[in-house]
């Protein structure tokens, strides 16, 4: 299959899926090895993202997703009668922060760090598609585990959790203990 056709097929698949499609699946369907699929995929994403069109292609985790270019958000909302998403509350952002760096985590873990009940925040973040359930912990009560979604990455404008801003968590934690630091 010539390259233009392959790219056309990828466009069609990403468009029809709506959700992110893993590179593996794309490679499978197109009968390509992964490195080749990766190269073609990057190429295609660049082409979309460097044009001024309304559609862009973003990498999310090990998948790729088509979505609209943010600058047209206003027109999309107006045409489709959507309300603008309210900015997230401080509480919601804090919960996301704890989950993002420690996933999968239970609600209890997050509540311990924040010192307050978070059940309402968890359900609203799940409803917004920013958090998702990830099975249960094998402990008494079998509490639910939560993790962040690909939408979370997309809204934050990053492609993987590795791109999260670094935290000084560990260092400070050790310093707080009677560590034998020079300083």
């Amino acid at each position: 299959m010539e390259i233009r056709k392959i790219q056309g097929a990828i466009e069609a698949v990403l468009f029809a899926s709506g959700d992110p499609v893993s590179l593996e699946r794309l490679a499978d369907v197109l009968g390509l090895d992964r490195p080749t699929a990766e190269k073609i995929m990057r190429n295609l994403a660049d082409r979309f993202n460097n044009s001024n069109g309304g559609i862009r292609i973003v990498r999310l985790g090990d998948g790729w997703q088509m979505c609209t270019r943010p600058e047209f958000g206003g027109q999309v909302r107006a045409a489709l009668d959507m309300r603008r998403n309210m900015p997230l509350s401080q509480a919601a952002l804090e919960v996301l922060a704890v989950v993002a760096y420690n996933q999968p985590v239970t609600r209890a873990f997050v509540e311990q760090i924040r010192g307050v009940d978070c059940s309402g925040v968890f359900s609203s973040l799940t409803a917004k598609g920013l958090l998702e359930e990830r099975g249960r912990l094998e402990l008494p009560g079998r509490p639910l585990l939560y993790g962040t979604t690909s939408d979370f990455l997309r809204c934050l404008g990053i492609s993987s959790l590795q791109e999260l801003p670094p935290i000084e968590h560990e260092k400070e934690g050790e310093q707080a203990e009677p560590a034998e630091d020079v300083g």
Partner: protein
Amino acid sequence: MEKLCCKLETFEGPLDLLLLLISKNKLNICDVRITDLVDQYVEQIHAMREHKMEVASEFLEMAARLVYIKTVSLLPKPEEAERLQRELTGQLLEYQECRRVAGLFGERFRFDSYSRPPEEIKFDSSYRGHLSPQEIFHAYRSAAGRGKRLLPPKPEAFSGIVSHKIVSVASRMIRVLRGLRRIGAARYEDLYRDCRGRSELVATFLAVLELIRGKRIRVEGENDGMVKLMDGGENKWKSEKFREP
């Protein structure tokens, strides 16, 4: 809680309040003297109550904790006080970091890019997987084997004499395990797919319970449960009272 947020704007919990007090005193958390904060903290809670705001229990719990730390530090056993203080400091540091990152998230979060609903596609249901002739052969023997056992007392022959077909739980256990060993995992509902009549359903359900109790399978997920074979399920199963037919 909500009134509290309105009153003091951005914060939500006792840790928030502590951080606020620390920042007011222009102290570094690492060398904050928690004991100095106790009075201010208790004062704040008083103020809230005077404004007829409901003070959430976690605020009171924190007050109690602080008072405890202060009490202990007055006693001639400083290690305990230090430990408690370190604990609280650690928690505050962790929470402060959480707030810092939350702030970064807040700056970066954008809800202007939209995805689209999946296109509605009618899928071709024809099977494209691979089967091996051996698989078919074994499936045949498995089917024929079972038929021999269940067949002789044909249900119809007993109509009027016995109105219920008896299905043993053991047979369903074997069936569930056999199915799972082949495909590794199955949707919970699929276990019941080939059940005919109530007694088979009940027997299968009991079999599933029995297998879970015996730690041979586990069920994961909430609404759309997946049933999985536990590690070593095969060996245990063979060793115990059920022998593979």
